[in-house]
């Protein structure tokens, strides 16, 4: 019973709750939204136990939607999407709680949009019908566009439309590619369906078309990740978005790109993805992302922009891990996806909390505040260390696995990527030092108040996760392994998996 309905409930509930919240008076909207997101989280939690690691696609529900085009409502999760769904439902209540005092105008709309956004995000991760996937992919665009555009910073209109058009451009070309795949599979089998498994079984004899299709999928996902030359929307969107928007952008939305690679672009077009030149290009772009992202982060005067560029670097590791295609590297990539959601989410929360107090995101506006707000300083330190990937925190496990796994496939690139870890330490520790240590010069900072219980309630679950994944990542890795292994076997003949070289 639970298995058949859980994903549908996870999709329907926030949408419904969002519509209800829209009708409520402004002063109760946030309470209702928080309650709704907690219910959502409660629905999703049993997934953790009931999920069978070796079971492949689970919790599958399948209903006909638009019969004449062979479109189904098909949802299901495996070891790749399980954690992304849980991450989404976990971050939502925190984001709502984190916006408590930040959002002061048009509250009903804001919380309703956050809930609708949840449906879109979960939909992307659970859809097993490419039409449904596309619809969900676009659906999450509108709420985010409004969240940035209505509640964002001074330059919000520019950031919102840039975010929209970048994503829209990529996804529309993907739409054409999905259609071509659909017709190809339909002509080959006589069955016209957008089902994931159906399309996957018919991609072998695509021939040169596969290059075009891969290109279209690549563009859509690369914009979302974002991979180096396509990343320019990200700093704008992150910086202008309100705290909850930044947290969800970094925590969940960026993962859609890497998820897309894992779920669609790689399994559909293995020949293209593993072509020598394609590998070379992607590895180089990931490296640029890691190092360039880090170097640019180093010179940012704006705290949020620094965190935004650090995302580019982190996602570079994920891309490297995915393309290296060894068990450790793929597991590591999956783990970084979760870690990044937790750590960067926490960083954005912290940046938002200090911004609420001082109305400045500039690093130089602070300094020496450890004495005034010790709790804040302590948590910021822990979270920064986890983002740097210090052993004992979650960041370390993920990046270590990626570097370890990738070394067998791309030794030189991995060696270069390692410098990214050093760069990360350089920019985060410098920023940390400039914000909380150094002498306290600005008298305005003396009046800062420390974290409130509500803010602690937002941060402590994140801290728990940071330490949990850092110290005991086995339950995570265990649930990911079969899915990661299946992906690798799909991409390469089994003999090559152990050898690790293409």
């Amino acid at each position: 019973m639970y298995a058949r309905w859980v994903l549908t409930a996870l999709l329907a509930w926030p949408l419904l709750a969002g519509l209800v919240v829209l009708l409520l008076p402004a002063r109760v909207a946030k309470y209702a939204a928080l309650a709704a997101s907690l219910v959502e989280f409660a629905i999703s939690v049993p997934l953790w136990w009931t999920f069978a690691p070796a079971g492949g696609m689970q919790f599958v529900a399948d209903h006909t939607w638009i019969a004449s085009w062979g479109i189904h409502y098909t949802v299901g999760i495996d070891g790749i999407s399980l954690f992304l769904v849980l991450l989404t439902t976990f971050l939502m209540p925190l984001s709502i709680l984190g916006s408590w005092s930040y959002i002061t105008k048009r509250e009903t709309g804001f919380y309703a949009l956050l809930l609708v956004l949840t449906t879109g995000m979960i939909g992307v991760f659970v859809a097993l019908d490419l039409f449904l996937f596309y619809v969900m992919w676009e659906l999450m665009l509108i709420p985010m566009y409004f969240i940035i555009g209505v509640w964002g910073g001074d330059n919000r209109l520019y950031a919102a439309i840039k975010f929209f058009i970048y994503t829209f451009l990529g996804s529309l070309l993907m739409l054409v590619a999905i259609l071509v795949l659909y017709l190809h599979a339909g002509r080959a089998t006589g069955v016209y369906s957008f089902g994931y498994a159906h399309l996957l079984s018919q991609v072998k004899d695509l021939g040169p078309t596969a290059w075009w299709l891969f290109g279209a999928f690549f563009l859509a996902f690369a914009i979302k990740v974002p991979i180096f030359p396509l990343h320019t929307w990200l700093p704008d969107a992150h910086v202008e978005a309100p705290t909850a928007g930044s947290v969800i952008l970094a925590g969940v939305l960026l993962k859609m790109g890497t998820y897309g690679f894992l779920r669609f672009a790689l399994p559909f077009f293995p020949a293209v993805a593993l072509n020598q030149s394609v590998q070379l290009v992607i590895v180089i772009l990931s490296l640029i992302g890691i190092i360039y992202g880090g170097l640019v982060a180093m010179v940012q005067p704006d705290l949020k922009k620094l965190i935004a560029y650090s995302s580019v670097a982190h996602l570079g590791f994920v891309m490297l891990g995915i393309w290296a295609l060894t068990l450790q590297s793929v597991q590591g990539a999956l783990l970084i996806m979760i870690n990044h959601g937790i750590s960067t989410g926490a960083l954005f929360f912290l940046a938002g909390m200090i911004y609420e107090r001082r109305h400045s995101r500039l690093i130089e506006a602070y300094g020496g505040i450890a004495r005034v707000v010790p709790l804040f300083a302590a948590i910021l330190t822990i979270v920064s260390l986890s983002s740097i990937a210090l052993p004992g925190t979650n960041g370390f496990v993920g990046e270590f696995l990626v570097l370890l796994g990738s070394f067998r496939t791309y030794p030189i690139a991995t060696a270069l990527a390692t410098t990214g870890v050093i760069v990360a330490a350089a920019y985060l520790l410098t920023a940390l030092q400039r914000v909380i240590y150094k002498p306290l010069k600005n008298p305005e900072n003396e009046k800062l108040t420390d974290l409130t219980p509500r803010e602690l309630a937002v941060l402590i679950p994140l801290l728990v996760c940071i330490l949990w994944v850092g110290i005991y990542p086995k339950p995570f890795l265990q649930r990911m392994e079969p899915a990661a292994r299946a992906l690798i076997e799909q991409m390469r003949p089994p003999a090559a998996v152990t050898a690790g070289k293409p």
Partner: protein
Amino acid sequence: MRLDPSSYGDLLLSLLPELVLTGWALVLLLFVAWRHRTVRDLRIAGWLTLLALLSTAIATWWLWWNRAGSPGIVTMIAADDFRWVADWVFLGAAALTVLISFRYLEREQLLVPEYYVLLIFGTLGMMVMAAGADLMVIFLGLELMSVAVYVLAGLDRRRARSAEAALKYFLLGAFASGFLLYGIALAYGATGTTNLSLIGAQGAIMGRPSVMLLAGLALLIVGFAFKIAAVPFHMWAPDVYDGSPTPVTAFMATGVKAAAFAALFRVLNQAFGPVAAWHDILWWLAVVTMIGGNLFALGQRSLKRMLAYSSVAHAGYLLVAVTARGAAGTSAFLVYVIAYTLMSLGAFAVLTAKGRGGESDVMIDDLAGLAGERPWLAFALAVCMLSLLGFPGTAGFIGKWYILIAATSAGQNTLAAILVLTSVVSAGYYLPVIMAMYMKPQPVEHAHVDVTLDRWGRTALTVVVVGLLLFGVWPNRLLDLARSAGEGVHAPARTAAYPP
């Protein structure tokens, strides 16, 4: 139910919707001859028009329900699902236009009940166009429609803009009609007939089409391209759309365009099916129209002008459906044109609420902060904009998706890619409308107090929004309807029965 054209009874039956509407048009003419002074007369005329449209729709529905069809022989009037569905589009567009006209005419002091008579005659012309299985019938319908719309465009006699629009439309439209008529003459000269199926049969026998037939085809395409406002025959469209009273603009952008497309589908597929020459022409026409329409729209600041150019861009998308050929293309056209009619009318309906004095001076930025004061109007316009953009969850997406399926299954992948890329460009002018409404503050306090629609305008807008969202999420019935209708155009008529 087979309608045998050799019996008078069946012939009348197959013309039933047109006859009903003609009857109502005459009744209405009589009515306005006596009662044309007060606002109340205007209202009654409007209600009678709605009644006329409704009864015509029921007549059409009755024929559709009984599966009325011609017995597969050559006739001048087609009786197939394509015609019924197209009729519904025209009737629906006209009915929504009437709903948004009530208050508009009173507010702008346009107390001319003939407005409604002309609207009915225009609709009648469209129905004749969609029914025509003969070039002469199509031409008759086209003229009936055009003359009525020329007058409608110039309805607001006190404003120079409206007169300019009417004159421009009339002069250029007369030219286009000339092209069309000349094309018909040449096609007749080449094949000895004006009947679509017979021309098709002649073309098939000819093998290589004669120069005269090709010249006729080219002139026909020019004539139609003018009516649908395809680039580079679109020059009249922005000025005419801009200058006409807004409900008339809505009617022109939806009904007139749909009718011209419906006739174009029949002419190209039935008469010129075997002639491959138009494939490339239409391909280029589609590409140029999509790119041109979208790029021109990008530069507009006035909402009405932007919508005018966007309707040019949408003509480009519809041309992709023409280029896709086959039944899928025709079905895609029907789905898209239904969605387009709804979303376009919705946008114009909101425009009538915002604007004064012809709306030509409503800039996109004038909508700033509308969502704060008029949340439902803003929501409706936002849905229309997203649908025009082709966003999932709206009917506009389903229509665009259908066109993309038709294009890719016809092997037109490049055209599909151009369609989606130009759609991205269109985000550049649809989104600013949403941005202005939701993300910009009101220029002055209570800037939008007088932005209201009356009950009937709100009814029209509700129909539009519900329709867009419903078809966007659950398009099954619509798709089934469009599929059977699309096949009607491509069913070969048995031409052997009546040798030319």
